[in-house]
């Protein structure tokens, strides 16, 4: 952009001439060339003071050197803010069309110093906080250098504090920005709006259609869904260290720390203090502080001196009444201390209220109810108080703590409006990490019993046991609700048998050949699976009766979000070894089912293949074991629910062959399986498996009732 300047500085290029007779000429030529070289070198490596903006960033620069822009007195002033603006009327979403991955791109204008005709600056060039804010934006994913591809523009003109700027001239400075266009898609940040005597609740600088991220909006100035209400940053956050104090009862029930309180409010609070004694503490400015102690760090009650903000940690509730402005920096301090703010400011739009659920962290009391505040607060149960204390601190940590947090939350809110389908969820905004960690949001949360007519798809994983495979196919095909059979041929060295050799069954049979012999092929979300219910079955499970399988499917329909299987297994905590142990004995409890034959929702195939945490999937494939335990972990982890074991079935391979239960083999098998559990528990970071004492049987199972009248008579063998 400063190309023309550049040409003027550079000296004329020199072209040496070949024909000459005087030595002096050569010397002159030589020295000119030399001088030229030196000059060019200096030009290259000297700090460029009036260079293009792209060069600036590479070097460290001083704010005193920013270019000065003179604003003529008659330069245009934008219209006043348009109160009817909404995203769909004043915001040009088409500018955001270039942005990849549902992320808006933000451009920041370069810093300039604006002066009026007389050379008097319009405002201080930039405050520490605004510089921090722009740095945070520039360091984020939102930032772009390319003005042509930007969706949102942030002027570097500092508007945080209206008292520090000249209203009309600042507006003129905004109007001359290169992409201003009535302020469309421009975002302005302001924390202290208005000025004496009437203290407007929004920035007075005329700004036309620009979005305003303002601290202290009221319902009358806030354009719902267009402006963003932001906190008033408290610089104390950066100066003082205030470690988190756990929730629970505190010394004072209610505290007021505001220095500038309207006398009417102060009287109300004094009356409260008189009525409730020690439980209420009303603090004021200290009058006789010795030199050198910043007034901001001390508060007094009569002659007692308290440290601020530490004293806030001594109170359960802290009042945050309106001052001249609605937005108060003390709100930030109060949250920081884990004190529950009691907002007494009618019509105040709380910071980030578009996304934050303030009911979980604060109490709003109408101004005229101020005298009742004590009884209102008393009615809140202790359990809720503790939750609110935690929530208050979490809000501070996530959204108030630093200028960076404020800036990024603001951009995220705007981003969510433009790409609502990719927006951050309520839970992500509001749930503190401890809740996110402990809670489960079941991906199949809708209580729904799928219709029986849908049926299930049986997936048989096989390698080369064709005879046994055919027997399984024949058996499974007898189950009434089977709707398709899928054979996963895991042997790359051998072709599946010819079409004519396969058993003829009443449902479609499809063979899928895999590229590699991996256990995880069993859990791949094949396109061929059209039903929601999947029956995973090994090619040697020939003992399950048709009644058992049909009943298993019926049970799955009643529990479509669970693993429904036959033989159950248990995990136990081995106190001696301090680790988990796999158990296959006759126990009264189950926490896993084997997937040698199990029904589950096909969505879990998708999760297993694409969302399995850590390296579990590869680990299973490498060890050729424990894919079933991995599936049990996965399902229990996302649903928070236990498996359902159906029928008494204990084994499902041939009862006479005891290979797998043979003593020596059994030992190593158990050790390996135990290792799997410990490995998975460490990858998941928790033990998601749930232990239950029940299994599902048909309603009339083993009841004294005519067998032929029972729906599933052929159940009960082990």
């Amino acid at each position, binding site marked *: 952009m400063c190309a023309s300047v550049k040409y003027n500085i550079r000296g004329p290029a020199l072209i040496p001439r070949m024909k000459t007779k005087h030595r002096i000429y050569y010397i002159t030529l030589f020295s000119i060339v030399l001088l030229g070289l030196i000059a060019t070198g200096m030009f290259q490596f000297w700090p460029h003071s009036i260079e293009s903006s792209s060069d600036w960033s590479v070097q460290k620069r001083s704010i005193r050197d920013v270019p000065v822009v003179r604003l003529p007195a008659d330069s245009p002033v934008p219209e006043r803010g348009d109160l009817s603006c909404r995203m769909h009327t004043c915001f040009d979403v088409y500018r955001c*069309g270039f942005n990849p991955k549902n992320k808006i791109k933000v451009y920041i204008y370069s810093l300039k110093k604006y002066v009026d005709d007389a050379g008097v600056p319009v405002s201080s060039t930039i405050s520490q906080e605004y510089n921090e804010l722009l740095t945070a934006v520039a360091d984020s994913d939102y930032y772009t250098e390319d003005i042509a591809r930007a969706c949102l523009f942030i002027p570097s003109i500092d508007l945080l504090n209206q008292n520090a700027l000249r209203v009309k001239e600042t507006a003129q400075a905004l109007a001359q920005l290169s992409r201003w266009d009535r302020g469309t898609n421009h975002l302005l940040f302001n924390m202290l709006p208005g000025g004496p005597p009437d203290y407007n609740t929004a920035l007075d600088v005329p700004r036309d259609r620009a979005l305003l991220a303002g601290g202290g909006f009221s319902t009358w100035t806030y354009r719902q869904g267009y402006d963003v209400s932001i906190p008033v940053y408290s610089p104390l956050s950066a100066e003082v260290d205030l470690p988190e104090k756990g929730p629970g009862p505190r010394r004072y029930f209610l505290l007021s720390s505001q220095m500038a309180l309207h006398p009417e409010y102060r009287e109300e609070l004094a009356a409260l203090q008189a009525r409730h004694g020690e439980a209420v503490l009303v603090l004021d400015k200290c009058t006789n502080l010795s030199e050198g102690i910043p007034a901001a760090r001390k508060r007094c009650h009569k002659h007692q001196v308290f440290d601020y903000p530490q004293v806030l940690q001594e109170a359960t509730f802290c009042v945050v009444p309106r001052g001249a402005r609605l937005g108060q920096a003390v709100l930030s301090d109060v949250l920081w201390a884990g004190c529950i703010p009691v907002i007494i400011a009618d019509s105040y739009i709380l910071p980030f209220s578009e996304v934050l659920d303030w009911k979980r962290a604060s109490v709003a009391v109408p101004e005229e109810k101020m005298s009742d505040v004590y009884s209102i607060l008393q009615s809140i149960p202790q359990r809720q108080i503790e939750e609110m204390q935690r929530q208050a601190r979490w809000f501070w940590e996530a959204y108030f703590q630093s200028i960076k947090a404020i800036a990024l939350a603001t951009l995220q809110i705007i981003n969510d409006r433009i790409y609502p389908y990719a927006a951050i969820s309520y839970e992500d905004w509001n749930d503190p990490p401890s809740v996110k960690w402990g809670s489960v949001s079941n991906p199949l949360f809708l209580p729904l019993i799928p219709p029986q007519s849908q049926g299930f798809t049986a997936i048989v994983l096989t390698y080369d046991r064709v005879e046994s495979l055919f027997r399984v196919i024949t058996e499974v095909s007898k189950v009434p609700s089977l709707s398709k059979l899928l054979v996963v041929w895991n042997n790359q060295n051998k072709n599946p048998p010819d079409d004519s050799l396969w058993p003829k069954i009443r449902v479609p049979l499809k063979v899928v050949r895999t590229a590699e012999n991996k256990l995880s092929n069993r859990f791949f979300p094949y396109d061929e699976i059209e039903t929601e219910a999947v029956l995973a079955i090994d090619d040697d499970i020939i003992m399950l009766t048709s009644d058992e399988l049909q009943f298993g499917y019926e*049970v799955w329909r009643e529990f479509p979000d669970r693993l429904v299987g036959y033989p159950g297994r248990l995990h136990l905590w081995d106190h001696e070894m301090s680790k988990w142990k796999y158990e296959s004995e006759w126990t009264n409890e189950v926490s896993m089912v084997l997937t040698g034959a199990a029904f589950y929702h096909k969505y879990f195939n998708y999760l297993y293949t694409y969302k399995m945490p850590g390296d579990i999937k590869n680990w299973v494939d490498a060890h050729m074991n424990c894919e079933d335990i991995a599936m049990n972990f996965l399902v229990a982890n996302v649903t928070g629910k236990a498996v359902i074991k159906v029928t008494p079935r204990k084994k499902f391979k041939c009862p006479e062959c005891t290979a797998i239960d043979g003593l020596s083999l059994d030992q190593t098998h158990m050790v390996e399986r135990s290792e799997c559990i410990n490995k998975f528990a460490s990858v998941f970071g928790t033990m998601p498996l749930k232990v239950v004492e029940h299994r599902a049987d048909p309603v009339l199972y083993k009841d004294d009732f005519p067998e032929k009248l029972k729906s599933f008579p052929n159940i009960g063998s082990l």
Partner: protein
Amino acid sequence: MQSWRRKSLWLALLASWLLVLLGLFPLLRLSVPTSPWAGAPQGWPRWLDAELLQSFAKPGELLEDGPRPPQALRGGSCNWGACFDTSKCRGGGLKVFVYPAAGPVSETRRRILASVEGSRYHTLSAAEACLLLLLSPDTSTGECDPVPPQWDGGRNHLVLSLHPAPCPRTFQLGQAMVAEASPTVDTFRPGFDVALPLLPEAHPLRGGAPGQLRQHSPRPGVALLALAEDGGRWHVAGTDFSACPWDGRCEQDRGPKQTHPGATLPNATFCLIPGRGPDVLHFLQALQVLTALQEMPLTRVLALRQQTQFLWDAYFSSVEKVIHTTLEVRGIHLMGALVFGSASSLPLSMPLSSDTSSALIIQDRIFGPSAHPSLLWNSPPGAILALPTFSPSPSDFPFYHLQQGSRPLGRFSALIWGGAPGQPPLKLIQAVAGSQHCAQILVLWSSEKPPPTRWPKTAVPLTVIDGHRKVSDRFFPYSAISTDAILSLDAHSSLSTSEVDFAFVVWQSFPERMVGFLTWSHFWDEARGGWGYTAKRTNEFSMVLTSAAFYHRYYHTLFTHALPKALRTLADEAPTCVDVLMNFLVASVTKLPPIKVPYGMWHQEARPPPLEPGGPGLRQEPQPAAQNCINQMAAGFGHMPLVSSRLRLDPVLFKDPVSVLRKKYRSLEKP
């Protein structure tokens, strides 16, 4: 000389080339300013003197911004506290008075009136009402209402209009709340007014059809997007639409894929209902919405699908639900916006953004803060069925343990309904008190005769509560109940400690369901053209008897405070109905069947002879008169909520041929 000359000449030549190159380099750099090789610009500069910058506010400025007296209220804008007199509601909770309609009443209006009048909020006195409901005039009558008598500037009024008003209002709305369909952004006062869904004329009064989804995930190969067009047509875009980017070229293809007007919703994962803007397609293209939909993770698609069904079922499917949602359960919790997310600003409609949990924002300023409005509103069973007055903590409800990472409390209260003459149920009390999970025994004495003075000594406290001699008493939320789980019993029930223990452990896995021993099943009786139910042992069941069942104490609150009074009266008149009613209630909340656990047949043989008719006790085969009650219940609920189950939950080793010593619940296997 010559060589020196030549040498210097070459040197000069070399140097000048060097010079030219060096000179050109920065020129090149300027000519391609944004190319990445130009030293990757780092954006906002790191100022050398950043440390010296001043803070945006002077030290005292944030602390003392000059106090100012409270502002007088400005007209035009209302919010809670300013325009609503909450003191009127403190006494009796939310009481709603409806202005009687003048002149002929349209069907919709009649339905609304009926649904308010049938609700527990209704009051006949305008003086004691906390909220005065004014129905906006109908399109059909065309008459304009005069200013209502208790208007008072609209204070504590809710003006409800389901259709655009046919005549200009003769009075200023002032401080009244307005509930209407499709309000404009300019007049809508967030957090005060209510946006309603636009109801079709034929919307059912009660119950309403459940959502149409029959499975959690979309069928494979189903179209990604259907676009609503004029005249009720839908244009379905296949999964291969990306090759055809909604520009002019695709317009020609539209014919064959169109559905007929009036056809049911198209078979597509997403439905798009564009606003009035003419260039929706342009808009979609610019923001690459379709790509975003296509790339949307399966997990989110599943969540969105399920949420549409839940929202529909909880708040939209009947006039009654819409009205109750507007009034909210006891305390005018207003839905700030039923305009989902930013549906009004972006033409992306309900299925796209309906899980933005901010969809339903409630304001419960009358009855103080409630802790988790969002959770209650946005997860099953929904805020109409999750009464916030029950508890501020979601963990106290049976529904939110997963989301909260909590568990139901580990003990239960046995509630024995007695009142028949004779000895106290000693054996039953001993068996129940013998359970390690039992926290207390409550005897609900409901007889004219005074209760016996002597009760057996038990390890747990035994309290006698005096009932009101009505069958519905047994489901009253007595404050004496101190645990989440209730074991509801009749004095004549027979249970063993093992059975109690096992059933309670099962209930802990399913705290939102009823877990019982004896079951009934319902069926559609073709011959009589109505519902019937039977106590015969069959291969399935849909109800468990409350003479021996575990359930969450929250259902007592729901039974007493949320059920229409008429249904409770019905149950009082025909005592066997009370079981049906309780099962209907739980099933309509959970949409799931109850759970059956094993029950020893020997109990039935040891049972005492049948008791006086009508009294509480064993309910064997329902009497013909009682058969009618299931139909009355179904009419009252507006649909048949019962769901059948084909399974029973048994202990893991139940009746297995292994040593009885291995079994934890061995006495369950008594023949």
